[in-house]
């Protein structure tokens, strides 16, 4: 399956190669579609492809590292 998410890196993680680690640790294909990185914040639009439980583990890994993981719709409540 494929899952599309937005990642928001906090300042202290901006320099970390998290996508590399995710690709090594879990059996998922990471595919960056858009990204914007400054010294204060990093935003990445990412597609993850793989088995559902591997994708879930990859997402949990990001969350544990302090990265915000959201559906591509951003906040839809209004």
């Amino acid at each position, binding site marked *: 399956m494929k899952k*599309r998410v937005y990642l*928001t890196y906090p300042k202290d993680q901006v320099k970390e190669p998290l996508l590399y680690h995710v690709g090594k640790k879990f059996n998922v294909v990471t595919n960056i*579609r*858009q990204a*914007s990185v*400054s010294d*204060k*914040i990093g*935003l990445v*639009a990412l597609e993850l492809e793989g088995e559902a439980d591997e994708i879930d583990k990859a997402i949990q890994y990001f969350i544990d590292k302090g990265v*915000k993981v*959201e*559906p*591509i*719709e*951003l*906040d*839809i*409540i*209004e």
Partner: protein
Amino acid sequence: MSYMKGLKCRECGKEYPKEALHVCELCFGPLEVSYEYDKIKEVLSRSVIEKRSPNMWRYKELLPLEGDPSVGAQVGFTPLVRAKNLGEALGVKEIYIKNDAVNFPTLSFKDRVVSVAISRARELGFHIVACASTGNLANSVAANAAACGMETYVFIPYDLEKTKIMGTLVYGASVVGIKGTYDEVNRLCSEVAGKYGWAFVNINIRPYYAEGSKTFGYEIAEQLGWKLPRHIVVPMAGGSLITKIWKAFNEFIKLGLVENNNTKVYGAQATGCAPIVNAVKEGSELIRPVRPNTIAKSLAIGNPADGYYSAKVMRESGGWGESVTDEEIIDSMKLLAETEGIFAETAGGVTLGVTRKLIEQGRINRDESIVVSITGNGLKTQEALEGKLNKVTVINARLSEFDDIVKANGKEYALKG
């Protein structure tokens, strides 16, 4: 006759058929409806529009439907009030209130977007309509869906105020309260939309839904006598409305219906939730998400989907973004009510409060035309005023006790006998 061409990615320009899509497969950018403007220009003129009924469908060529709307035929064409008393209080020459607090049927501008979204959802063959909401949108989806016999699911955070839930439940909608944070509610809703394939007005129907907001801008231009204002102040939650008002003004210019007046567009947020305003002030392209903490709950979106585009509109038009505190919101709600007799919801207090700040800062010229966008009715957010207004004076049914009140108020009136 429809002039809707299809959907187009706002980022990379890739084109898509006019289906229930909202995200570009290629770059994940948002999709937007595109139109055949050349053909519209041949058929749409001021006089054609003026002959039509006073509702938002008088601009139907510029709305994304194949046929006639199946719900909300009376929505829109709300008053544009020349606010002389307010103008005096603020020391400005020409100020108007665009008053969607009296929009039909659920007293907010959301009826504009929802009537487009539901009509389009029916054209696309959907039978169930849904939304994620904290108030106005929920009310409008439930009411309009009921009016055209569609089944409705509304997703809300479980700890929402009772009064807001009532205004949705009364229409027979299935209301699902979700235990969890704001982020979790959002995540679940996009999963539900993906799995069940319902028409979520603010997810998979969003490109069509958002177009309904343009009518707010068209009406202002027409009601000003086919002129654009010099300044317009717009409240921002997800940031969609401000971009669509800008689009509406530019479409009217493109179609030759109005002249370019170099309108400056200003965005208003509450200080307790101002991610877009912060970005504008910092001159940043990135919108840093915030955790909302404000009484203006209808604007409390911490990670606004259209934040980037709203900031761009303010930059491009030469406008600005400003925010106000909860105290300033209440103060402006009271000022609008006391000067113009208009009871706006907290979001209206945000918009007027920001307008006042921009005038004081000299960003808005006191001699030029200003439009303040009021998007919802104060009756819906009465709890915000709890303890902030004068108390009711209670007396026995005796004239002498009333005389005492008059005396205590320090007023003197001519007496009849």
